[in-house]
């Protein structure tokens, strides 16, 4: 993972608390000692936004923060560029604590280290696509020539070539969000914050935009923080996923971790609806035993998802396949039976616990 060409900067969120209300600092200690969200609300009229958030976001990865509405995910992402001030805790980017920056440093940090894409696009309606896209660079004070050069490149990359002189109102939602994405990318910041960026788009266009993002990420390798309420989207995009509920992280890990070992009832209820064949990799179900001789020469690489493995095997009309690593060494065997079983059996957090015991 330690690629040389990683452009992102890691983000460490440490013991972050956010309480909304008139005197939030007065109640931090009580909340740290375990006062619940309802208690805080009923007895003191303050709302607990985030409780003890600890997330390590490695540089160059897509970190998804998933949660339903009211879980605090949008509040959390706004702490990274401090659009919301925390009540307690630290957000460390490049050894600097964002929460301790003064106004000027914070402005410089926002200009050069972060770029953000919004759920409701938040484009300037009186500016054309091109003028919207240059916004970040204009704020930085670059020459117009440089602004346009960068902007035109990214407008092309997100597929809006030819629309430079249109106004946002003349574009569809999907196209508007492409402008939002181009505006953020033109800023060329190491951190890309995406707040439910694709949630307002219809499903096909959303898939399309996810592909655009994944394609771009292969090249730009930024640290992307992606907020969503959609587990499928989280699993498709996220190198790592953190699941929030009522302002607390209930589970974090890779998509596989979450699908295979849901931490509680809440998460398993989500996971039930997921297309498992697209998430689980062959490594998880490969066994050392079995008959390597019977595989008939079909091989699949580690890290292949079940759906693809199944396709390879059915195309070759085989019941078994050998799993090989990057060097071509066999690491195990999968059978069509295991494969289908893994694709259809929903694992609740109870059965996964039982299996672990």
């Amino acid at each position: 993972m330690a690629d040389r060409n990683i452009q992102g900067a890691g983000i460490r969120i440490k013991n972050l608390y956010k309480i909304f209300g008139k005197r939030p600092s007065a109640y931090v200690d009580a909340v740290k000692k375990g006062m619940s969200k309802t208690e805080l609300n009923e007895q003191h009229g303050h709302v607990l936004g985030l409780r003890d958030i600890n997330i390590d976001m490695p540089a160059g990865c897509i970190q998804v923060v998933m949660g339903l509405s009211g879980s605090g995910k949008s509040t959390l992402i706004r702490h990274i560029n401090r659009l919301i001030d925390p009540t307690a805790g630290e957000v460390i980017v490049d050894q600097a604590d964002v929460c301790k920056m003064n106004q000027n440093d914070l402005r410089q940090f926002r200009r050069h280290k972060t770029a953000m894409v919004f759920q409701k696009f938040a484009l300037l309606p009186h500016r054309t696509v091109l003028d919207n896209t240059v916004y970040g660079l204009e704020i930085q004070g670059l020459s117009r020539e440089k602004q346009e050069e960068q902007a035109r490149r990214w407008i092309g990359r997100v597929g809006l070539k030819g629309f430079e002189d249109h106004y946002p109102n003349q574009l569809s939602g999907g196209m508007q969000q492409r402008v939002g994405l181009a505006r953020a990318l033109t800023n060329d910041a190491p951190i890309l914050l995406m707040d439910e960026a694709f949630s307002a788009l219809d499903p096909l266009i959303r898939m399309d935009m996810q592909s655009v993002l994944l394609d771009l990420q292969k090249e730009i390798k930024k640290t992307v923080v992606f907020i969503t309420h959609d587990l499928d989207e989280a699993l498709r995009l996220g190198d790592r996923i953190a699941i929030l509920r009522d302002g607390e992280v209930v589970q974090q890990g890779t998509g596989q971790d979450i699908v295979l070992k849901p931490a509680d009832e809440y998460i398993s209820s989500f996971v039930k609806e997921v297309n498992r064949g697209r998430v689980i990799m062959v490594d998880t179900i490969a066994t050392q035993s079995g008959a390597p001789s019977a595989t008939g020469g079909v091989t699949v690489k580690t890290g292949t998802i079940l759906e693809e493995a199944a396709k390879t095997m059915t195309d070759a009309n085989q019941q078994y396949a050998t799993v090989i690593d990057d060097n071509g060494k066999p690491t195990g065997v999968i059978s069509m039976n295991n494969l289908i079983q893994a694709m259809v059996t929903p694992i609740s957090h109870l059965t996964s616990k039982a299996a672990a015991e």
Partner: protein
Amino acid sequence: MDWFYSFPNMNDDTLRNLKKAMDEGFKAFTRQYGDVIESFFQPLQYFLIQAERFMTTTPWPVMIVLIGGIAWIASRNWKIVGGTILTLLLIGYFDMWSDAMKTIAMIFVGTVVSIVVGIPIGIVMARSDGFQRMVNPILDVMQTMPSFVYLIPVVMLLGIGKVPGLIAVVIYAIPPMIRLTNLGIRLVDKDVLEAADAFGSSSWQRLRNVQIPLALPTIMAGINQTIMMALAMVVIASMIGVQGLGQPVLRSVNGQFFSLGLFNGLAIVGIAIIFDRVSQAYGKRLQKHQEVVHG
């Protein structure tokens, strides 16, 4: 039970003395500072005189072309330009040209002063709730206090003439400018503001790039209202010596000249309609990007 049926008012002598003290105090203030205040408004008077001289000395055909040209640049609409020229021709034909030009000069200067003073006040008001709480009652007074009442101290300080008239016009016409600037900025979409912040805008960049442009339709409505209210003050301003279409109206009230009053009144209406249509069309043209092409 006497106090129950007749309000126990202040002692007559005390009241008389209070009024006397206030009047004398203000007179003393006028004697002391009248000159200073007058010189303070000197630039305004210069501006006003220059505007009026330009409007009245420029030959009428040039003036018509000029005003028609401005109407075209602002509205890009031949109907509005045609209406403007026709109105001006009628005004000239009925021998009200010079008065109309004086009135237009007054309205123009009054509106410019209102914009220059009003927009910054509106901006500060939008940024500070405390300032808004302070300014709002003052605006209420300015809009509801009968204009004759504030004409008294203005005339006492500055005498009769153009500048006191202009001040009266501005006092009456500036509140919508301030209020609508404040409102427009406060109504700017919070999401867009957040985006501007997220990209690291300074507060000046935020104001220039986001707040003012997005508030512009409301601000334009404020300018339009200011123009209309300035025109409404023309007759009252004529009582303290402002020349223009207001004076013949005043004369016709005194002498019961129905036709004189009607012609000049209609000329004021005509000018009001020109200003209104042109400024509204301009405001609309600024909003071209709002036109939804995509369904």
